[in-house]
Structures are given as C-alpha cells and as structure tokens.
C-alpha cells in the first residue's frame, strides 16, 4: 500500500525539506518503519523506545487520530493520507 505522509515543519530537515512523502505498508507501524528506512532517524523523533508515538505527537489517518482507532496497528490502504502533528507552542 502506498500512502501519502505529511511531515510537520520540525521534522522536515530529516526529509530533505519535503513536507509530503510517500511510504509503503499495511499498518501505521509499517509506515513508520518504512519512513525510517527512507529517512534515517525519523522514527525516534516520532516514537519512544517502545515504538509508541511520543505523547506530544499525534498521528492521524486521514482526519482521525489513530489513538482512537487501533493505534500503531491501525490498517492503512492505498490512497490514505497520514499526518504527523506535533504540539507547537509558539505565539509571541
């Protein structure tokens, strides 16, 4: 399955400054591993040592937060869009 992954600004230095990349896999977990193969270092920015997304980063499958689906085991299908959305604090 090929899906579109939206990369947030703080992680774009790992993706050659691309805000959108393509990844392959059947679940969110596969997608994260596939991203790591393409862009070394990106997974540890998104996930903790146990492989779960960090508590200040959410992953959305299309419009839905995967925490309310099946988490990292959520299946994905061709044409899905995954967004990685970290907390940002700026405002001054």
């Amino acid at each position, binding site marked *: 399955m090929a899906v579109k992954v939206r990369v947030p600004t703080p992680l774009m230095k790992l993706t050659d400054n691309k*805000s959108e990349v393509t990844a392959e896999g059947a679940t969110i977990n596969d997608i994260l591993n596939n991203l790591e193969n393409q862009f070394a270092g990106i997974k540890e920015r998104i996930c903790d040592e146990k492989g779960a997304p960090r*508590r*200040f*980063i959410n992953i959305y499958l299309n419009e839905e937060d995967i925490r309310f689906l099946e988490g990292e085991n959520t299946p994905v299908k061709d044409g899905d869009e995954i967004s990685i*959305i970290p*907390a*940002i604090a*700026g*405002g*001054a």
Partner: protein
Amino acid sequence: MIDFTDEQIERYSRHIILPEVGGEGQSRLLESKVLLVGAGGLGSPAAFYLAAAGVGNMGIIDFDTVDLSNLQRQIIHNTERIGMLKTESAKKTISALNPDVNVTVFNEKLTSENILRLFEGYDYVLDGTDNFATRYLINDACVMTGKTNIHGSIFRFEGQVTIFKPDEGPCYRCLYPEPPPPGMVPNCQEGGVLGVLAGVIGNLQVVETLKLILGKGETLVGSLLIYDALKTEFRKLKLKKDPKCPVCGDQPTITELIDYEEFCGLSR
C-alpha cells in the same frame, strides 16, 4: 439588550446589519469578558480585532516590554513604544481604536499561584502564549474552572487553532497528555516565524471567540485547524475527548495546577 448611543449604532453598523449579529449580538459582544494571555504575536492582532468588534471587557496578561524585534509581527505596539510594558502599549492602542472597551491589564507572569485570581470574571481565555509551560497551566486552569480556551500556536509557516470547551469537547491534554521534554522541540526563537502568520492565526482565534459569544455557526470545538502558509492550505482534523485524559478524563490524576519548567521561548 443594551441601549446603544448614536455613535455606537454607527460604529457597529456593519455588524448590526448582519442577521447573525444584529443589535442583540452586538449587545452580547459589548457585555462579553475575554482574557488575553500574551500581548505578543497572537495577542496583538487578537486584541486589535476584539477591540474593533466591541468586545466590551478585555483583560490582558503580559509581563514583558516592547522590543524592536517584536515589531515584525506584534502590530499592536509600535516603534515609539520600545521599552514600554506590552500591556500598557496594548491598552493605549485599544483605547484609541475603541473607547467602548474596558481594558484591565495584568503585568504579571502567569503562575499556578495567580492564575485562578487572574481568570476570575472572564468567560473566555485566548491563549496567545509562546511556551508549553504556560499552555499546560492555562489548559488545566480552564478545565478546573470551566472556562473556554481559544487556542492558537505558530511555528515558522505553520499554525494550529482549536477551541477547548470543557464538557463539550477535548482539552489540550486529551491531545497531548504531557509537554515535550526540553530539547525535543525546536526553540521558537531558533525556529523563526513569518510575521503575518501570527496575524492569520490570532485573527482566526478572534473569529472563533466572536462566534462563541454570538452563539452562531460551527466552531472549532472538537476540530484542529491547521494552516500551512507555504502550501496555502487549511486542513481540519478531528479531535476527541480522551476518557483517560489526566485532567478532564474519567479518573483525573492531575487535580492541582502545575508549574512546568520553562523552555521554548519566553522570548529572552
């Protein structure tokens, strides 16, 4: 409904002719009480347009002074006011724009000690701060006091807006249970920001605040609006209340206000 003066009817005529506002809605705006936390990038445009709209009671919290590097985006201040307290500068601009607005200034740094006192008397809190510590403090205090938090944040060319309305939708901790540890996110100053992005996001916070006060339209309760200025793209993601949320969930573990260590920002 309040008795408008002739001057008010003229000042707010473009509002009053809108069926969604009318005399009644304008009365509501004039009687509303909105607290702005931060008179910086987001707070500047927000204070400006809230004042123009005739939001009658505005509190502004900020302990900082106007700096030359602020003026690329903090448009409520100006070059002559460098060194002046931001609250005083904001009050001056607001009073010159619309004398109907009662401005109360708090030259204080928001902490767990003073937040409940400062929140008293306000119905809506517009979060225009620049650091996680204060954002979590504002969230927790809003949940505990039942106040609506109109949230906006910016980084480089990207902005996020949502509303955290206790009981009706998720809170900030439903999204992000804990702040990131220092060093895990880029510092705001290092990151930079397109000045006008603060204007876009701060004004979206105002649009949402006005709709909440008027009780019109669909608000961002339960949705996260993301704006990508480089792509010229708005996206809306669904937010859900987390039953396991540490502050607004079924069994909250956070029942007292927390002062997190400060990082990412507080300008200098």
